[in-house]
């Protein structure tokens, strides 16, 4: 077991509302954007994950994605290359629900994360845009500020 690693999210697609898709092509380097200062995220999963984290940090109200038309951005197999993200998604689910048993339900865990991502994406967008510098600096400063101010706990 110690050397076995499994990715419960392997078969789950990650979707975002069509309206929020633009941020992924604009701010991720995988979209073919070569200027790092303008497109700070190496991959789409990095932006998505940050949105999850920001929403959790600011205790934003999760958004039910069922009411939107969505588009797939990545599939869950991406987490296979970053085991810590799998653990983090599980811990978020436990932290948010207070229920440890949720770890056996990958789809539930993912929908919690998804709802957070959709809540967090407009905020991350705002972080990238607000400021006088390039997106990477705007975002860095905004995160720096967020980390200095106490987290809002539900």
């Amino acid at each position: 077991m110690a050397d076995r690693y499994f990715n419960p999210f392997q078969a789950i697609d990650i979707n975002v509302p069509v309206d929020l898709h633009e941020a992924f092509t604009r701010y991720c380097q995988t979209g073919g954007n070569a200027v790092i200062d303008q497109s700070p995220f190496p991959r789409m999963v990095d932006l998505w994950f940050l949105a999850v984290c920001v929403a959790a940090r600011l205790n934003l109200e999760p958004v039910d994605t069922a009411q939107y038309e969505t588009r797939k951005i990545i599939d869950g197999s991406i987490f296979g290359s970053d085991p810590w993200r799998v653990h983090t998604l599980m811990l978020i689910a436990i932290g948010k629900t207070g229920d440890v048993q949720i770890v056996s339900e990958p789809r539930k865990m993912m929908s919690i994360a998804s709802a957070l991502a959709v809540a967090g994406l407009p905020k991350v967008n705002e972080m990238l845009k607000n400021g006088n510098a390039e997106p990477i600096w705007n975002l860095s400063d905004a995160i720096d500020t967020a980390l200095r101010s106490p987290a809002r706990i539900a």
Partner: protein
Amino acid sequence: MKLLRASFENFRLLRDLELKFSSDPERKLTVVRAANESGKTTILNGLQWALYGDAALPGKGEDFRLHPIDWDGSGGHRVPIVATVEFEVTTYRRGPSGLRETRRKFRLVRSAFEEVNGKTSRRSPSTVRLFALNDTGASPIDAPEALINDELPPELRDIFFTDGDRALSFIEADVAVSTKRERVQRAIRALLGLGVIEEAIRHVRKASSDVNKQAKQIGAGSELNKIASRLEAIDEDGLKLEGELDDAEQQFVAFDEKVEETDRKIATALQKGDKEKLQKDLELALRKIKHLDDQLTAANKEHSALFRGQYVATDLLSPVLDRAFGKLEELHDQGKIPNTTIPVLEDRLSAELCICGETLKPGEPDGQRRREHVQRLIDDSKRVDEIQEIITDLYYGAKSLRPVSDAGSRWREEYGKIVKSRDGLQVLSDEAGREFRALELQLDALRDTDIQGLREARRQYKDQRDRSLSKQSSLGTQLAGLRREQEVLKHERDRLLREQEKGARIIAELEVTQDVTRVLQSAYERITHDELKKVSDLMNSIFLEMIGADPEQGAIIRRAEISPDFDIIVYGPNDRTLNPDRDLNGASRRALTLAFILALTKVSEVEAPNVIDTPLGMTSGYVKRSILRTAVRESAQLVLLLTHDEIAGCEDIIGEAAGVVLTLTNPAHYPKMLVNDPHVAERKVLRCECDHRHACRLCQRRTDAEAALGVAT
């Protein structure tokens, strides 16, 4: 293809010259011995002009005179220029009795006229004719370019016809990375025949736009019709933009080369004008700027990595994680995470030492018995239910995600470091820029018309280079925007199609074309990847063999490879990357480029000549010999244009490998370097049959010492 013979008429120094090439597979080498300024580079240009026309001449032939410079008009003002190349093409056909080899011979004749008017001249467009040669004579063949394109693709001109010095442009540090990459990439893709797949991809793309047309026809004036029309327009715009982007990229490379070339000329001019110190300072300042640029890029990447790393997540999530770990701790305290033993026990097993200090070595009887016992404990523990297993895994596996209570934010710490490094580097970079501009002011103050002329030229080239770069990025942005719009519209179109009765069939067709595109795309990438690896490996082994005998470099250089980004990289001990300019000596640099050229020709399985001008310059001793020997072995037909110095020390190898050796002499070298007066008034190169060991009345040269003293016989 193999070269058989070539002849030139009024092609610069080659007023009338015929060359024969060895096509004997046992003696693949042809050596043309010629001192400097005796027509070596002219032969290289002449062969390429014959095969590819004006586009293959320096500067694409613009302002490049072809007729002999001392044309006096007595033979008329209209100078006929002719280059003829005879070659042999081997084809294989599978017949009833196995593979059948057919050899066909061809003669290619290119001719043009230059109207000479005093110092100026005008050249008519060249005409080219191709003949198939057979026992009874020659029969003309239509569309000669097609055969040449097949046998010696123009994109590979640099690989088949190489100037030993220019070839270094594949690796040299003072050439922009993108330029080198582009050269390597272009060469590799051309050799692997990837054009065919590219063509297929274009074809499928067209098919998909045809399907879009069908969608357009459903319900004129409807929303679907509007979207399909918009998609059609986007397709067209996209193609146009891609073409423009291609052009801009090529322009950038061309102007970048011009800038580098002018820099070299300025450096030479400065040295001539006793301004060596200024030249050195400039070079140093430029190097510093480049170095700082690299560091800035690296810092930039590190900054970006802050958003893919773990810290940003754990720091932001610390309240949530705290809560989750709290839950896990509760379970742990209640003894509901019992498998704590497993990792510990497994640790012990691999350490072969029990917690109590007893041995767990599998070889010893007690050790083996205890091992089995421990393994049983592990197996028992593993039989807990699934949830517990996942939780246990999480509890132990997510240790690194636990918030560190006393520490502040680790992300902020990293971010602080990056701000410092980026700011610091920016200050240094600004400073280096100022230093450079100050030196440029010194240059401005020089009253040397040559240098000022060159600098003006450089400014213009650089201007054009920068313009093509900004054009590239603006086109890139436009394309990206277009693609985004396309994605959204496609999505919308497919949604609307699904609502239509006829839509299902169209959607199915679209899906098929998309699938085919994906297959082709992945084939394209796989071939590039696999073949690139083959070229890379072969280049490495040829390179190491060539420099293997060099004790000085042997200790530094471990291996060379072509990266997936098409960069040629050399590694030293501990996988440290080496800078070809600084860490490799001249011989190794030459060996590396020759290894690349030979590997590429070989992996492509194209039977093609390698004609190389001055391949052994800057090499000596064992390395020189091993470069020559390896090159002969790896090439299908090797034509080397060598100086006497390059030949020295390799006579035996040439004796064994060469099927043809001949000597060229420039009569203008009398009396300084030639012993006998050739009695030739015109400037022209003369050929004699002397091989690398002999000299005749015509080609006998003074020794260096005699030449220096100006001794006459």
